């Protein structure tokens, strides 16, 4: 078997383990599905009249508007949970088992990210299903839904890279867990839950340059109106940037961990 095929099998096996680990540890699963679903229910139930505000983008319903934000939230918490799980592996010495195997060591990081991306995919499917069940239209049709799913999956991989880097650098699950509020701050300072046009300063300016705003708009557009090339490209560019940042930081943190043991 070629080295590349073996590495692909290792990434697949570690990704599968990471998904099983998430399903078997409720504290990893609940932030990905339960928490964002509850928040979606509360927000659509309590702030649905927001769609009538002047400047609110034309949408079929507040639920339709909120789907992208909920997917983003679930995706970012999947990245955070992936980082926590990775740090737990380091704390209990499981990564030593992996580092002692004759595989490229970055395959260990990629395996973790594959699992996180799969959880992002699951979250996207879950919220699209909820939207459809409760009457939200996907204006971009099946291509629009597939685009939203692909963007969320890729974003999970990107955010997971940053989570993995922090886990590798600190080796501490509690440090990664401590980033949970930061995830929400980053999200609330984007257009995930509220239209940018209706924000006040300085949140409006921060949201304007927040890369997660570009991603959320790339996911939202196919849901509320249809696929738009500009938003899609901006989202892809933001995701690519975060992926490069995450992989770069992970590679550096991995080198550091191997050096210090």
């Amino acid at each position, binding site marked *: *078997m070629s080295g590349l095929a*073996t590495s692909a*099998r*290792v990434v697949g*096996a*570690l990704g599968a*383990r990471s998904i*099983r*680990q998430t399903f*078997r*540890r409720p504290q990893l699963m609940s932030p990905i599905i339960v928490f964002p679903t509850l928040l979606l229910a509360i927000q659509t139930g309590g702030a649905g009249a927001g769609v009538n505000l002047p400047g609110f983008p034309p949408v079929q319903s507040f639920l339709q508007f909120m789907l992208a934000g909920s997917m983003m939230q679930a995706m970012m918490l999947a990245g955070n949970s992936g980082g926590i799980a990775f740090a737990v*592996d380091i704390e*209990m*010495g*499981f990564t*030593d*088992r*992996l*580092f*002692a*195997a*004759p*595989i490229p060591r970055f395959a260990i990081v990629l395996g973790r990210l594959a699992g996180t991306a799969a959880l992002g995919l699951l979250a996207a499917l879950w919220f699209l299903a909820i939207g459809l069940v409760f009457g939200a239209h996907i204006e971009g049709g099946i291509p629009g839904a597939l685009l939203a799913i692909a963007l969320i999956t890729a974003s999970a991989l990107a955010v997971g890279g940053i989570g993995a880097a922090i886990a590798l650098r600190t*080796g501490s699950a509690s440090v990664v867990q401590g980033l949970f509020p930061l995830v929400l701050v980053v999200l609330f300072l984007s257009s995930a839950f509220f239209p940018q046009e209706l924000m006040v300063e300085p949140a409006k300016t921060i949201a304007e340059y927040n890369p997660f705003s570009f991603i959320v708009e790339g996911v939202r557009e196919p849901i509320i109106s249809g696929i738009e090339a500009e938003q899609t490209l901006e989202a892809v560019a933001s995701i690519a940037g975060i992926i490069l940042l995450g992989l770069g930081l992970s590679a550096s943190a991995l080198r*550091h*961990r*191997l*050096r*210090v*043991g």
Partner: protein
Amino acid sequence: MPAIVVEGLERAFGEVLAVQGIDLEVGEGEIYGFLGPNGAGKTTTMRMLTTLLLPTGGRAGVAGHDVVGEARQVRASIGVALQEAALDPLMTGRELIRLQATLQGLPPAAGRKRADELLERVGLTAAADRRVGGYSGGMKRRLDLAAALVHEPRVLFLDEPTTGLDPVSRKTIWEEVQALNDDGTTVFLTTQYLEEADQLADNVGIIDSGRIVAEGTPEALKEEVGNPHVELLVGEGAVPEAERACAELGRVLPPKDADRVLLEVEHGAADIPRVVRALDEAGIVVESLELVRPSLDDVFVAKTGHRLEGEEGANAAEEPAKA
């Protein structure tokens, strides 16, 4: 060719030199016991030999490959069972062995077959589909050992394989290690148990404060320390007379209580008949007699000035916490 060659190996953590230029050689098919208290540098040395930690000085080769320059080849040749039994409590035993098989590059069908064989070998077939979190300490160590054997490694590294285990589980691990060695596997094991090193190891290296202070077969090391002595229980009041009767047969050692005589003898068991005859001729009744040989603990005391057993960690600086 030796299975492991280490020359001037060093590892510093900041200002602390945890391993201070050690040299050792382990022959093919040998069991090498690396003995020392907590914090002596055993685990740090093993982590360097298994490519988990880069040395800061010296060199080491395992299975003919350099641990720094040819780390991947080293990892393909070795099996590693780590001290903390690095197992995911959420995985089942079967999942863990299959994952290990994938990590070692076995095709899926071969990995499944090998997992079944190994689970059978370590007596975990019935528990194979249970989560590892529910295993006992002994079961975890056996599973860890099985995982290390997936690819039939040339050299097996075991980091304190029986620490914290009950005597029965400890014996099971010893038997398995011995069986593996009988099949030709070289075994490098760290331990803080003298009995473990004595029972299993062909050669022993004693490490203290990052330095190897003695190396050799357990027998040779013990012989280095001195001759065995005979401990005679003769009853209170008979000690001076017994000491006089034995004076020409060996060196009378300072007594440890009022009714015992300690006599160092040159030829061990061969000297016992002469001692018994001398005491009989002097009319002294011997209530019990025991030949006491030097232990590895005596070797440790002779080489370091402190005891190994019962004082683990008391005399050596703890290894710095991992970052």
